[in-house]
């Protein structure tokens, strides 16, 4: 595992949005150079955690640190792939153009031909190669399949040479085969680059075999730890109440029962 300050560090953080508490008193840390899953039911505040780290949202109380610093907008050390519907079919740009914006799209002006251009191309090609998307990169992005688009977007995030990747539901629109491909791609990037990755997912199973840690968000509470330690009946029951149960099938897939229903009716108690 990489040296340095934790990838993220929350100290008794509470988050509120339009008067509603999303979660509160979260104190968790994620070691650098790790692949971490952020799981929990829909609407539990998983994306909220990413917005907090990106500096797009302020905590109501507590302190947040990303890579040892307070969060700030436009942090070049973070690569971000937001949750999305697929790109419009007619978007008139190629994958290579999107990835190029990941290198210098935030700079004013336009790209001047010259020495910088070579460096730009090297970074774009490196990022594309890492996710195996170079052969796709000359085609219109809107014409690529969901899995291919996700790889191009991951390359865009990597093109900025980040120390932390924030990936919001990159597996959501993919079939099982592509989910596995994506999981292994992110895992390889984490190991080879020594970066940290935080992947939000509603289903932990496709990445269970490759992650180092889990951040579990449900019922206004956030916990973190090793996967086997967090995703277990005793731990989740102790944290969230007696009715939580973790089931395992013969393939090692886990199913958490008892948290979804609660989250779907947060005002019933």
């Amino acid at each position, binding site marked *: 595992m990489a040296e340095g300050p934790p990838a993220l560090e929350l100290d008794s953080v509470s988050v509120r949005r339009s008067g509603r508490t999303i979660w509160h008193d979260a104190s968790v840390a994620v070691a650098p150079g790790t692949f971490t899953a952020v799981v929990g039911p829909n609407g539990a505040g998983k994306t909220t955690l990413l917005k907090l780290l*990106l500096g797009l949202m302020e905590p109501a109380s507590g302190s947040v640190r990303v890579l040892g610093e307070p969060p700030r*907008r436009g942090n070049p050390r973070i690569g971000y792939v937001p949750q999305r519907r697929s790109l419009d079919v007619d978007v*008139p*740009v190629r994958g290579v*153009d999107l990835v190029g914006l*990941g290198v210098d799209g935030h*700079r004013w002006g336009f790209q001047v031909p010259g020495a910088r251009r070579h460096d730009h191309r090297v970074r774009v090609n490196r990022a594309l190669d890492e996710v195996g998307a170079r052969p796709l990169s000359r085609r219109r992005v809107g014409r690529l399949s969901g899995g291919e688009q996700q790889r191009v977007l991951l390359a865009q995030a990597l093109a*900025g040479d980040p120390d932390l990747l924030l990936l919001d539901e990159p597996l959501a629109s993919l079939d099982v085969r592509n989910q596995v491909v994506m999981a292994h791609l992110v895992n390889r990037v984490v190991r080879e680059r020594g970066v940290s990755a935080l992947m939000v997912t509603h289903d932990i199973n496709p990445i269970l075999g490759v992650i180092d840690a889990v951040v579990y968000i449900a019922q206004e509470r956030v916990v973190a730890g090793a996967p086997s330690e967090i995703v277990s009946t005793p731990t989740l029951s102790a944290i969230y109440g007696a009715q939580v149960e973790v089931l395992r099938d013969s393939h090692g897939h886990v199913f958490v029962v008892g948290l979804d229903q609660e989250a779907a009716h947060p005002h019933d108690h």
Partner: protein
Amino acid sequence: MITDVVGGVVTPQVTWNMVRDIAQLFDYDFSRHAFAAGTVVAVVAGAVGYFVVLRALAFGAHALSHIGFAGAAGAGVVGADAVVGMLLFTVGGGSAIGLLGTRVRERDVAIGTVLAFMLGLGALFLQLYRGNVNNTYALLFGDIYGVSALALLITLAAGAATLLALACIYRPLLFASLDDEVAAARGVPVRAVGVMFMVLLALAVSDAVQVVGVLLVFGLLVTPAAISERLTARPARGLLLSSLLALLFTWLGLAVAYYAPGPPSFYITTFSFVTYVAVRVGTGMRERARGALPVLESL
């Protein structure tokens, strides 16, 4: 048939000598002004239009031209130059539309509401103004042969400023237009860039109205860009091609209108329309021939 600035009827004839015919296009001041203004307007409209199509702002561009109409009519009431009123109204309206954000459904309803109100305001101003009908007609359908030396100078200055500003915000604007969430996370001031673009669009619209008028702004601002975005998937190339197409349509329109009956705006919009249809049919056939309909490809 066209009338020159002093009201005399000019009837140039097409001959077999093309060089002579083309040289004849520049015989008169009004025609030279028309080509100069048309060139500036087309290049600017093509470049700005690229982002109009990319940002799905076609309706906003349409609305801005109507807002400009109210401004021009209002300027008539207080005795100011039409261009001044148009610039004031479009820049104000453009900033407001920019602040509405990028959620298309909400934005379009808001734009439509403002558009209707502005047209009403324009109707009121016209009645107060009681100006001659010719001015109103010129505003609605363009009057490129009526461009004065002063108006040409204003057009040139506004056009140069617009292109310069567009070059300055090019990369973050492209980033924000394609993916506002990632752009915002990378530190692009997405909303500010959006408002800046709307101001540039306001300038481009005010310029374009002189050539093709309020009702036909689409022909220069949207159609060339739409054609270009079907033909190329490279942003810089697409922007240049969009400008070139707008320029080509404008020059052809002016040249044909010089010899044939009908206003230049008719020929400009006709050339852009016909090219658009041809390109749509052509690219559609190419895709079917590849057996790769986009819908099937994404399954």
